[in-house]
């Protein structure tokens, strides 16, 4: 076999398999990508935890508890991969308040804020059960698109981890849609759901990042990304229409 640089190998679709064979810049971008997922799951779970008490009935409370528990578990699984690069996994999740939120009317766009890498959508506060269910469905559908993208990531141990996580994240959307179907049965619930959809739709949409992002180019060169932000956003919008139309919320 002829020798090949790691950069050429990655450009041709090669996979890396251990911290020992990743180049420095690749390492930085890979860890950043993992941190963004972990922080979003931790912040998402912290926000969703309150829903457990707000949910009507034991079944819905169990569903909310299950979603919260599994999002924490998914954060832990990706953090374990990060730990192989030297990250201090014991200290990581203790470093700040994941439940902290900004104002409901804050204008955050796609940018990161504060001292963590959570997607901007997880900085907005959830207001009650219906609001949480709507966010869970819209963001869950976005996670589905993201999982499809991340299963192709060039760091094989991470791609494997995302493939394990994906079916359970998909199940969170199903649980959310079940809850939403119950909510829209009443006029009051439907009105609340419509309001929440209007609130969350642009905020989840912004979480796909900027069009023609420079970061994307760097990530694509390393095989960490394959689909542009706009294409992922479009894919998500289609899934949202498909999910909401039967409920009369589309």
């Amino acid at each position, binding site marked *: 076999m002829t020798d090949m640089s790691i950069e050429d190998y990655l450009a041709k*679709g090669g996979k890396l398999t*251990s911290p020992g*064979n990743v180049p*420095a*810049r690749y390492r*930085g*971008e890979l860890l950043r990508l993992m941190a963004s997922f972990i922080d979003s799951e931790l912040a998402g779970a912290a926000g969703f935890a309150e829903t457990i008490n707000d949910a009507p009935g034991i079944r819905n409370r169990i569903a909310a508890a299950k979603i919260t528990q599994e999002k924490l578990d998914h954060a832990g699984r990706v953090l374990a991969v990060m730990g192989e690069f030297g990250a201090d996994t014991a200290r990581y999740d203790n470093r700040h308040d994941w439940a902290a939120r900004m104002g409901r009317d804050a204008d955050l766009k796609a940018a990161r804020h504060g001292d*963590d890498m959570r997607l901007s959508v997880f900085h907005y506060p959830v207001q009650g059960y219906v609001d949480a269910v709507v966010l869970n469905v819209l963001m869950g559908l976005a996670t589905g698109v993201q999982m499809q993208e991340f299963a192709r990531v060039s760091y*094989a141990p991470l791609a494997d981890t995302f493939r394990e996580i994906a079916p359970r994240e998909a199940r969170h959307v199903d649980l959310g849609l079940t809850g939403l179907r119950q909510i829209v049965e009443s006029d009051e619930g439907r009105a609340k759901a419509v309001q929440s959809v209007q609130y969350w739709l642009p905020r989840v949409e912004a979480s796909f990042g900027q069009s023609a992002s420079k970061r994307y180019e760097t990530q694509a060169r390393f095989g960490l990304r394959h689909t542009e932000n706009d294409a992922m956003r479009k894919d998500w919008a289609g899934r949202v229409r498909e999910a909401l139309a039967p409920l009369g919320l589309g």
Partner: protein
Amino acid sequence: MARFLPLQVTDIRRDTRDAVVVTLTPRPEDAGAFDFTQGQYLTFRRSFDGEELRRSYSICAGRDDGALRVGIKRVDGGAFSTWANEELAPGMELEAMPPMGRFHTALDGGSAKHYIAVAAGSGITPILSIIKTTLKREPKSRFTLVYANRSVNSIMFREELEDLKNLYLGRFSVIHVLKSEGQEIDLFTGRIDAEKMQALFDNWIDPASIDTAFICGPEGLMLTVADSLRKAGLDDAQIRFELFASSQPGRAKKKAVSRDATHAGDATEAVVTLDGATRTFRMPKQGENLLDAALAADIDAPYACKAGVCSTCRAKVLEGEAEMAINHALEDYEVAQGYVLTCQCYPLTDRIVVSYDE
């Protein structure tokens, strides 16, 4: 944090002219930590001329072998592998981290699967561990190994593979592909490329029968084989990789410390390289860390936690000196080589040269 534990060398066996198989025994209290999964590797550390080197070698033993064994092939100019091949002896102690790596699939005694593995050279080491463990623990599964080498003499574990063929008659087959020696059938000579993979699929291995494929070798082999497997209908989840990078970094260079650097001024000239582009800006020595200063200078440096925990913002100081306020992520040897967490990094010298590319 990674921790190194002592392992005693209890046996060394020469396998080929330039490869040894090393049997290691942990202390009784560490036995649990070294309870490995097939296909994992050990990372060793050793100091050469006062400089710490770390190298990873795959475990070649099966889970039911009752021993911890790694194969170490000598690489040209490789300090660790040369030392292991020439000077390592029974009774000596090595330091290693507990097994790591995810080059495996879950086994189930009831399944009847067909696995294939494609390995080149020392890429056989983790594959051997997988083959032994799988055939033992899944009595109804079968395994086909395609194994590329330069010549008969350079085939690692040749006898062991023959023994396995006899032990698991009808469940294990080996196809040797030799670069420089003609064999009876043309297919088995030369190197593994797209045509050879196609010929294998046409004549020897029905791709539709494959449940999981393992590939271990250098970059070119990984690309070729993965591409052929995908074209033959396997999806990404069925293909497992372990890259044995051909361009192993040599000895780490010591950081250059500028002797005439004075510590007088309050400001620093920072020279920062990212993605091959270098920018120079001035920053105060106190009150602002290097990462924030670089971000303020419109350098899109990688970072995540900003708390010295995650190591995303790691960079190397090439010239000048700096100190870190908090470090929960870098180990002593990385710090000795000049690596810093830029989110915790404050310059001490009037000029500092830092690279995110190294």
